[in-house]
């Protein structure tokens, strides 16, 4: 397992790096609008009515962005959580913590594909 993790590390690091870069860039407007402006009434709720949201989300660009919005933060989160746990004395645990966290990110990414196709 350790050997497999070492082999996959460049890929995981790339996903993590994009998770920080693109994930942060994409999440900022999502959190601003969907997380705060619409719930607080600053933006009218019908901006993301079911019809409009479906129209946006079912466009190919919309599906790709939504995929990125789900998958990239998951990989960034999983990788950073792994490092946080190691920093708090978890080097020995890492053998099973790392695969668990990355599996969670992988599973979430797969579900993301299903989710965007379902729109």
């Amino acid at each position: 397992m350790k050997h497999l993790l070492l082999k996959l590390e460049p890929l995981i690091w790339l996903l993590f790096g994009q998770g920080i870069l693109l994930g942060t860039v994409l999440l900022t407007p999502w959190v601003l609008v969907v997380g705060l402006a619409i719930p607080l009434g600053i933006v009218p709720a019908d901006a993301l009515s079911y019809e409009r949201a479906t129209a946006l989300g079912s466009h190919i660009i919309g599906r790709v962005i939504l995929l990125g919005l789900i998958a990239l933060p998951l990989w960034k989160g999983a990788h950073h959580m792994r490092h946080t746990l190691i920093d708090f004395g978890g080097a020995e645990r890492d053998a099973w913590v790392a695969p668990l966290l990355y599996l969670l990110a992988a599973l979430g990414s797969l579900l993301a594909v299903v989710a965007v196709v379902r729109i």
Partner: protein
Amino acid sequence: MSDGQQNKTFVVTRFDPDRDEVPRKQSYEVPVRSDWKVLDALNFIKDEIDATLSHRWSCRMAVCGSCGMMVNGEPRLTCKEALAQYGDTVEVAPLANFPVVRDLVVEADGFMEKLTSVKPWIIRAKERAVEEGTMRQSPAELEEFKQFSMCINCMLCYSACPVVANEPKFIGPAAIALGHRYSLDSRDEGAAERNAVFRGEGTVFSCSFANECSEVCPKNVDPAAAVNQAKLNAVIDWAAGFVLPRGGDE
């Protein structure tokens, strides 16, 4: 008082493996001069107060890398740090993250092993014959790696790094910076060999970019830059391996 003298209290970590179960602290009152560095006070303690104190030092001018210790909780070269910046009490302890041999002396063997592991020498595919003359390198080519060649192996970066503290196999800032220095050298042809080390058990990807190594480096080597550049180079090498498979590579 003349010469700007005053008394400062030095709380020094002591450890004698023959007498002490665990390290302990011992306080010394030292009449310090205003222009003294921390090392001057330690040498005064050894010369005038307590000859049993053990500490490493050599050049007194921040080039040999011998005198690294924790001063008020920060890894510092004791020959470089002026006492005037500290208050009435100064705490001196051995470098964090290292096994302690005695008092302020840490075991450096682990560090030496990590240094050697990155193959810190020019690697050529085929050794150049003496008759072919010297290799030529332009100032621009030198500039690409010069910063990373300024390391004095003082180990302060290892003391500051949270990954070194928690992952024993991690190669560490200075060693990765040194390996990267050689991979960037225009005379070197060993980048692939070093990338294999960088992706091995001591993997560069363990670095979580705390940047503490660069914060404490007394020579502005910026090892954090080297480590993260090495990550990118390792990824490029890995990706290129799919497009241009090397013979004998896995």
